[in-house]
């Protein structure tokens, strides 16, 4: 099957073909996700080089562990989970995790320790407004920040976010509400 026809297949169909040895299907998956992942992971890492390393590592893992993917999950969920886990591991190893939380089961007992600003590669966030928006997103608790990024930066549906974070769709919506209200308070004066 040529590359034009591969573009018509769903992610899950491509993954199945890849599991059966079709390497072109893997290339198509890389093509579909490399920039989406880069964009998402960059806002985690705040550093282009580290983000690109994480994305490369993610596709390495996808290649090596293709047999572990089961059709019960969406391919996007599986790939994002790998990438986010790698990013979190890298951040915790480098001690650059913006915040960490000790979260109770119901999410009520959050003890957040936030840093002012982790070291950042602001070469792509040159304008002041972007900087303010990014700072505001950074200042959110991790569980809210993650959802804003997935919804507004990666443009995922509520269902996709819920599957990825393994939380109910209702929780996704309520966290997004809280996150947006906090962001509105932080940036509304700048965007008028």
């Amino acid at each position, binding site marked *: 099957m040529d590359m034009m026809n591969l573009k018509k297949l769903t992610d899950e169909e491509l993954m199945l073909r890849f599991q059966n040895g079709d390497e072109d299907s893997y290339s198509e998956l890389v093509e579909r996700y490399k920039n989406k992942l*880069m964009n998402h992971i960059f806002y985690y890492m705040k550093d282009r080089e580290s983000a690109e390393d994480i*994305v490369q590592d993610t*596709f390495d893992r996808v290649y*090596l562990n293709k047999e572990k993917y089961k059709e019960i999950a969406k391919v996007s969920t599986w790939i994002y989970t790998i990438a986010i886990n790698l990013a979190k591991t890298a951040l915790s190893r480098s001690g650059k995790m913006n915040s960490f939380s000790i979260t109770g089961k119901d999410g009520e007992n959050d003890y957040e320790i936030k840093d002012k600003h982790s070291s950042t590669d602001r070469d*792509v966030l040159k304008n002041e407004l972007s900087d303010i928006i990014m700072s505001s997103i950074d200042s959110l608790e991790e569980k809210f920040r993650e959802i804003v990024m997935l919804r*507004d*930066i990666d443009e995922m549906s509520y269902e996709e976010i819920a599957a990825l974070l393994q939380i109910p769709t209702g929780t996704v919506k309520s966290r997004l509400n809280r996150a947006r209200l906090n962001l*509105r308070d932080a940036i509304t004066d700048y965007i008028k």
Partner: protein
Amino acid sequence: MEKCCRLEEMIKKEELVYDVIAEEGNNEILEHINSCSDCGKFVSDLKRTSDSVRSLLKVTVSDSFDAALRSRINMIRNEQKKERVEAVPLYSRVFYYASGIAAIFIAFFYISSLGLFDNTTDGPLPSLNSEMSLASENAVSKGNSAVDSLENMNKSVQDDEDLRLKVSTGE
């Protein structure tokens, strides 16, 4: 006049999700947003906030990404190949290589038995052996003619000598 916070309260109490106000087509809420300037402003602030986040610059991979990934995947493939070979027990590998060598010998003897290496001139091309025997025959005949000419030369010298002797004796 007191500021209306109906929508803000609903969102804070999680009775309403900003994103789905329009999607769910809740007419009562939509009418309130249209008629209440405070709630209208609140919703438009939320929308602007969301749009601002969406407008953040999209970061893409560098030009060298594909080449770097390809080389990493090639390395993985080579390692997997190596692991597959190493996973085969030593005696199996020895048997495998010995079988290969035996197959080559069997093929050689089989082709030999067909007579392809025999000295025959029936075929369209002369065999190597026939070429060599022809060359050696030529060499022998060339050697014979050289001996003959040497004998002829000796004979003519002898004749000259006899003639000179006859002249000197006056015969």
